[in-house]
């Protein structure tokens, strides 16, 4: 199956354009729709395309910028495909797979992905409770006192700690590294340096998660254009081919409580498939943008991706291992923890800039990289990009 998929998909599509607004905290002075249109236009123009060239759209499930808005505002006259991908934080990277498949099938030439938020949508628990994926949690767990993601995800981290001896101080390395990367990025929100001691002094939200284990509430928007290789020969920027995309869903994905294995995420099911499809190994990965709604989610994914054995994530993230110049630079833009929470679309934007050689915190000679998504009660997605 891998050989057939590989022949059909590998190199069929490439990211040709990326765009983002300025990111900020608190309420934006413009609507979520306006922000997303700004990012969409930036991505289209970055590719050297005209907005009328877009023939497929995958807007976010938030509903603040739907396919109709994109037709109305961009003046698209022949939209051939629209869909949304309801996988929470795994959606953006999973949408790369959707775009790749639609392009490989010959349905579309240029597919636009866009997300954004205006910072006025209210409490995260309230927002998630309204999504179908949280229906089970909302009915059975919210009455018991579990509401926000921090409360739902904390038992995964606690189980890892009890099983492997991982500590809060280990998670601090992830938060501090993301902050260091944000300090070097012009469009990152968090500009105050953070030490390991700062992390340990931050207040507990839902044990073992402290404030600095948690990602930001942000406003802004980000967008990506995925194009058919055959339609992208003369575009503005160097092509960044999609070598492989995959998504993985955990067993019993409606609640974390009922997941048989709290120590592996959905991405564990699809990581090897992605490496096989791409025809690369872990050692080929020069830079990794890993979904970081919470510090622990980075650590768990590093294990599930096979960069280290299960239980060895703490050792992997210590001592600069995931920093610039480390064995695997992670979230070179500062991530959701310190750049902004753009549902991981900002991770795709950053990876593309790294592989073009135009990143703020450039990893010298980066040729192959990966980006992941994590969402809802354990959904995972991965894309491997580059010129290998």
């Amino acid at each position, binding site marked *: 199956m891998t050989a057939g998929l590989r022949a059909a998909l590998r190199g069929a599509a490439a990211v040709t354009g990326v765009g983002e607004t300025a990111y900020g905290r608190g309420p934006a002075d413009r609507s979520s729709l306006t922000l997303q249109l700004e990012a969409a236009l930036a991505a289209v123009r970055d590719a050297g395309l005209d907005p009328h060239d877009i023939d497929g759209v995958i807007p976010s499930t938030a509903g603040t910028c739907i396919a109709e808005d994109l037709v109305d505002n961009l003046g698209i006259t022949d939209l051939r495909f629209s869909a949304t991908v309801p996988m929470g934080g795994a959606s953006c990277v999973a949408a790369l797979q959707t775009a790749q498949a639609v392009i490989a099938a010959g349905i579309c030439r240029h597919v636009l992905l866009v997300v954004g938020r205006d910072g006025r949508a209210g409490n995260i628990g*309230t927002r998630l409770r309204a999504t179908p994926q949280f229906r*089970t949690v909302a009915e059975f767990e919210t*009455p018991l*006192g579990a509401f926000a993601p921090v*409360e739902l995800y904390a*038992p995964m981290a606690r189980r890892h700690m009890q099983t492997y001896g991982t500590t809060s101080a280990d998670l601090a390395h992830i938060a501090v590294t993301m902050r260091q990367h944000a300090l070097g990025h012009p469009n990152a929100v968090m500009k105050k340096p953070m030490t390991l001691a700062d992390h340990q002094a931050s207040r507990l939200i*839902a044990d073992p998660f402290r404030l600095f284990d948690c990602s930001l509430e942000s406003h802004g928007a980000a967008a990506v254009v995925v194009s058919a290789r055959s339609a992208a020969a003369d575009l503005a920027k160097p092509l960044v081919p999609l070598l492989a995309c995959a998504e993985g869903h955990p067993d019993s994905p409606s609640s974390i409580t*009922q997941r048989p294995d709290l120590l592996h995420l959905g991405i564990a099911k699809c990581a090897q498939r992605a490496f096989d499809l791409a025809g690369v190994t872990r050692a080929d990965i020069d830079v990794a943008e890993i979904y970081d709604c919470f510090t622990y989610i980075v650590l768990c994914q590093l294990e599930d991706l096979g960069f280290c054995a299960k239980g060895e994530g703490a050792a992997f993230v210590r001592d600069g291992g995931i920093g610039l110049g480390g064995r695997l630079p992670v979230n070179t833009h500062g991530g959701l923890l310190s750049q902004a929470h753009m549902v991981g679309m900002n991770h795709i934007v950053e990876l593309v800039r790294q592989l073009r050689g135009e990143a703020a915190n450039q990893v010298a000679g980066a040729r192959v990289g990966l980006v992941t998504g994590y969402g809802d009660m354990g959904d995972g997605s991965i894309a491997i990009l580059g010129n290998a």
Partner: protein
Amino acid sequence: MMSSLQAMQSLDAQPYWDGLQGEAGQGGRLLVQRCRACGKHRHYPRPLCPACHSFKVDWVPPAGIGQVHSWTVVHQSALPAYADRVPYTLLTVDLPEGVRLMGRLVDPPGELAVGRPVRVAVERGPDGAPQPVFHWA
């Protein structure tokens, strides 16, 4: 407050909710689904057995003693009913029937550890509605 926490009760889970509420004059009890065709327990309630795909189901009380699988201690809550109850401990508990439960530990937490035995009970939550909670066994 009751309406905000309990507003999402679904038709497919009505026996679960009715069980917690209890009959007039009796306390509520926790019920989980057991497939009438293959005997496999499942939770949270859902229409179809994922093992044998039978819709036929019995709603049965679990034995009641489980083991701590994991936990979190919630230090801030956006839920009005819980906001002034922090910190509280939410346990994830393995039952011998092969399903898990979530619920508050209503005894003093003491030394939390994986594998510690707990007993499930149905008691009134902060909104007044009956819910599964845990005591140390």
